[in-house]
């Protein structure tokens, strides 16, 4: 037993040396993920901020001016262009100068004051980015409905008989950053640990040192442990630092228990490394290892619920997401951060991660022996 630990320890020292002895390797493991945490956290938001719009006002009334002022105000929209002729609308949208055109027709004030029919306001959106178009439309609806209720109030008209009172739980101002930033921790951990694991065995194969490793007294299980632990430590340390930045720098509230989060992190990194080692033991060259890593990372990110909700996916694809470690980790980290979940609430997310990790690692161990060439 002691000799086994001694052997594993020797392998661990060698693995850490080969990962960290080279200045460039140290650099790529530490700096790019941190830069990305910052840039991507600021970039990835669904909240519209200063979206460029154009306004085409054919009406001279003060009500139209009032409505325009509501659109032009921060934070969602910013008027960058005043349109004078119909033909300019197409120019502005085609050339991507603006994403939205607000058009108030000549009839606007007359219809508004006669109150026989609603006064029409036209909105033209650039559908090339239909997600942004849809969000912008939602903002525009809110502006108009606020205008309507103020108008009714000011003119003593019978207001709406019923009104919506919307409240958002866990994230009262609906800041999408709170949702996106903790997710980035999962993304970066996936990318870093996956490549470390996916290239580890492949590199030894390509350089021919893996055969040497196999003829040492180390058993495949010991090799597996020796290969898995460095990635596990690097992954957990990087995730911890990212979480620290998310809390301190981005000020996302961390409501739940750290213990629940850390059980999740360890199991998540474990399952990612399992998948990486499985890929690595299948590949003979580092290029194959890298390709395999990519073929897991890309679908892993896309089918995780990070950027697009899993509920919107077709049923078959929803079943596919069940083998994706990032899917579970996102629920864990968002749940702990925003909903204040504890260990007991997350058991259903823990065991699939453990299962994925164990399964992949056993496959990797079996493949070590089989692929000798």
């Amino acid at each position, binding site marked *: 037993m002691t000799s086994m630990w001694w052997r594993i320890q020797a392998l661990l020292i060698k693995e850490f040396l080969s990962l960290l002895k080279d200045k*460039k390797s140290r650099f*790529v493991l530490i700096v790019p993920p941190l830069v990305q945490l910052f*840039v991507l956290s600021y970039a990835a938001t669904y909240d519209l901020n200063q979206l460029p719009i154009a306004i085409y006002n054919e009406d001279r009334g003060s009500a139209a001016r009032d409505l325009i002022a509501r659109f032009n105000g921060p934070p969602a929209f910013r008027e960058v262009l005043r349109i004078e002729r119909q033909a300019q609308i197409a120019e502005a949208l085609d050339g991507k100068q603006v994403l939205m055109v607000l058009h108030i027709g000549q009839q606007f004030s007359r219809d508004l004051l006669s109150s026989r*029919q609603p006064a029409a306001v036209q909105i033209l959106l650039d559908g090339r980015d*239909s997600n*942004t178009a849809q969000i912008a439309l*939602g903002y525009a609806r809110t502006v108009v409905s606020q205008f309507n209720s103020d108008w009714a109030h000011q003119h003593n008209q019978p207001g709406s008989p019923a009104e919506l009172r919307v409240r958002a739980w866990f994230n009262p101002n609906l800041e*999408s950053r709170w949702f996106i930033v903790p997710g980035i921790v999962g993304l970066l951990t996936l990318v870093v640990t996956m490549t470390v694991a996916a290239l580890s065995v492949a590199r030894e194969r390509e350089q021919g040192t893996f055969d040497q490793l196999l003829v040492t007294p180390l058993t495949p299980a010991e090799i597996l442990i020796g290969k898995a632990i460095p990635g596990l430590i690097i992954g957990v340390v990087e995730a911890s630092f990212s979480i620290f930045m998310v809390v301190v720098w981005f000020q996302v509230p961390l409501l739940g228990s750290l213990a629940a989060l850390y059980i999740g992190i360890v199991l998540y990194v474990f399952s990612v490394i399992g998948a990486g080692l499985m890929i690595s033991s299948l590949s003979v060259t580092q290029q194959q*290892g890298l*390709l395999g890593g990519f073929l897991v990372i890309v679908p892993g990110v896309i089918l995780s619920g990070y950027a697009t909700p899993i509920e919107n996916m077709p049923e078959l694809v929803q079943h596919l997401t069940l083998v994706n470690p990032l899917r579970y980790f996102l629920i864990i980290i968002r749940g702990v951060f925003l909903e204040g979940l504890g260990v007991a609430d997350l058991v259903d997310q823990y065991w699939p991660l453990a299962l994925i990790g164990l399964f992949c690692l056993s496959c990797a161990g079996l493949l070590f022996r089989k692929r000798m060439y």
Partner: protein
Amino acid sequence: MNAASQRLLGLIRKEFLQVLRDPSSLAIAFAMPVFLLLLFGYGVSLDARHVPIGLVVEHVSPESRSFSAGFDYSDYFQAHYFRDLREARQALLSRKINAIVHLQADFERRLNGSEPAPIQVIVNGVDANTARLTSGYVQGVWEAWLNARAEWQGLTPVRAVQLEARVWYNSGLRSRNFLVPGLIAVIMTLIGALLTALVMAREWERGTMEALISTPVSVREVLLGKLIPYYLLGMGGMLLSIGMAVFLFQVPLVGSLWVLLLAGSLFLLAALGMGLLISIAAKNQFVAGQIAIVVTFLPAFILSGFIFNIDSMPWPVQLFTHLVAARYFVAILQTVFLAGDIWEVILPNALALLLMALAFLALALWRAPRRLE
């Protein structure tokens, strides 16, 4: 045939043989686009359909029934009824539903009172984007109900201003139409960088770089010999992706194919140039692979305007996106696919791609090894 072109042909032949010997390059160029496009095209959608929503109607009356019917018959919702708010809360917490609509017992009485009757809406704010879309859909149901109700009672509609929205270029707001062209840019980034990121580092690591330097070939010829085979492979992948977008996913191609292919060529040169530069600078496949993953996938996914709107990002991040070649290609792809050959969008972006390609290739040439150290 002069000696220079013969040397070049020899290098190209060697590279092609290497590609054929390790099929992972072929897999990168052809299998990866098919796999990713299928996954994305079918898997990813930002259009919420059948959002599970919980209805709590404390007192059933004709009015409340007509209101809740709006949810029963809407394509956007899948209504679940709960007896009381406590039960609905439990469902919201366990993610069985995304939102709760609550009509209190006195809803009917207050409808005819002077103050508007409140309709409580609670959304789960953890996913802020979905929460916002969901409350937008609830607002739609509410407005439709108010209108229908006013019509039955023979009253004038209560809204002063009515919003008419028109979406250009993608009138159905079909998110696949903008996701698939954007995805081509992400895939081409991966192909370009993955194909070349390891090729120079591999020669160093295997010791064949010394052999290459001692032959009469010049540095320019070595780089061209690496570039041409992978350019041909990459363009094959690009044609395949466009074909799938048009024929399988039925994304309309309004503009012309040759503009797409030309822009694709420029983009591919930039991506391959970046890969070569990484490969030359790293000299080690592990470092090259890490850098390639870090600088390609996540920036192309998050900073290209493919999913997240660039105009809404903070200005330092917006500046940063100008360094991401995918940003220019996404703009061209979405415009040519959905809006047509609009030169005021295509030309500046194509120029930017050209400059990036030239810059990367020049840097690669400059940093390329001329002698052994």
